């Protein structure tokens, strides 16, 4: 008897459509997040994450509609992130049917936002999205050598990643979605050093993200300290099926659903 390692596919959604390409032959509409969410649910995904990459206000409305339609058809937890700047945004997403929301840029700018959300809705709804890279040569050093980035990893903040993880937990973050911007897109495996470093300072669940390229990449992330693993492209393109990631974890001795 023990808690299963969660395997979580992530969908980038803009104006109600999946933006990164999806490569499943049997989908009617590979751009429809609801259809893809249903597909992942059927394949055994333990949770779903939508990352709203929409810029416009009208686009955000469409995202609420996608969340609503998904929550009507998919009965596993749904996390929505991207563009959450205020308690009112959280309220709207939860009402639409999201179970958790994730924050990054707005919380870096104004850390009290974490406390405000946790106070109103409880810390279990609040995922801190931690986009981390190693400090580049010439940039100001941080104590851990890792810094927080915003704007999808494009902007360094000079903020020490481990210190921020600790602060965010104190403020009320209930979970950490740890994205390695160094590993992201490489398909060369998770950033194990980073996972271990964040695990060491975290008393909340840590979801590892960035770098998955094959099923065998998943177990080492858990060994390094992750409670859950998240990936996008490697699932969308069918390079690894949810079931294959779980089989690799099971073979390594980790409980899965």
């Amino acid at each position, binding site marked *: *008897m*023990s*808690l*299963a390692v*969660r395997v979580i596919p992530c969908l980038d959604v803009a104006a109600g459509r999946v933006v990164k390409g999806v490569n499943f032959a049997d989908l009617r509409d590979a751009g429809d997040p609801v259809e893809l969410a249903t597909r992942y*649910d059927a394949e055994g995904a*333990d949770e779903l994450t939508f990352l709203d990459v929409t810029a416009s206000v009208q686009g955000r409305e469409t995202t609420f509609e996608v969340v*609503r339609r998904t*929550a*009507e058809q998919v*009965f*596993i*937890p749904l996390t929505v992130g991207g563009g959450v700047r205020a308690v009112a945004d959280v309220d709207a997403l*939860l*009402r*639409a*049917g*999201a*179970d958790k929301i994730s924050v990054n840029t707005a919380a870096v700018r104004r850390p009290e936002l974490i406390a405000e959300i946790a106070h*109103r*809705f*409880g*810390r*279990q*709804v609040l995922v801190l999205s931690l986009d981390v890279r190693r400090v580049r040569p010439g940039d100001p050093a941080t104590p851990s050598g890792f810094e927080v980035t915003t704007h999808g990893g494009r902007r360094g903040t000079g903020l020490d990643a481990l210190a921020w993880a600790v602060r965010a937990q104190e403020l009320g973050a*209930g*979970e950490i979605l740890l994205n390695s911007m160094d590993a992201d897109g490489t398909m060369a495996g998770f950033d194990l050093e980073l996972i271990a470093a964040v695990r060491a300072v*975290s*008393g*909340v*669940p840590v979801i590892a993200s960035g770098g998955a390229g094959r099923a065998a990449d998943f177990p080492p992330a858990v060994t390094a300290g992750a*409670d*859950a693993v998240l990936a996008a492209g490697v699932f969308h393109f069918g390079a690894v099926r949810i079931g294959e990631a779980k089989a690799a974890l099971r073979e390594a001795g980790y409980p899965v*659903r």
Partner: protein
Amino acid sequence: MVLDYGSGNLRSAERALARAGAEVTVTADAASALAADGLVVPGVGAYAACMAGLLGVGGDVVVRKRVATGAPLLGICVGMQVLFERGEEHGVATAGLAVLPGTVHRLTAPVLPHMGWNTVAPPPESVLFRGVGSERFYFVHSYAATRTEGVVTTAEHGEPFVAAVERGTVSATQFHPEKSGGPGAALLANWLETLR
């Protein structure tokens, strides 16, 4: 009927019950909640905030009356926790509805919240888990009761705790059946069956 007292993702509970075959209404009206064939009390977030929300819509009276008259009730997550005698958060005790014996406290575990799919151990006489088998259910909580009376299903995270309880017409789950896929739907269908 799902009781709306300002807490939780009511939409999911509503949709999951409908999928399991129920005619569902979401209400904040005490009289309707009292008259319903079955009442679901959801709840997420802080114990004290949920109790305050419940008191705000007269939910305490509704729950106690339903229990006293044998009208079925299903508490989910913090909606289960408020059925106990009290909850202890950050060293502060909040009085609960006391329709189930026991207290709710912070689990002793290295990682909290307890978040994700865990196994449960239902006793053979459980009605809620009839035909469900050894499935996992979705939990997200940091607090739980470790002891109560009735048909008790346990789970473990750091320490054993009460994952579900059935006592007379009072049923409650610490996990979220509405978020637990097929097994969750089966459990809700079992509960709905008891309303017939």
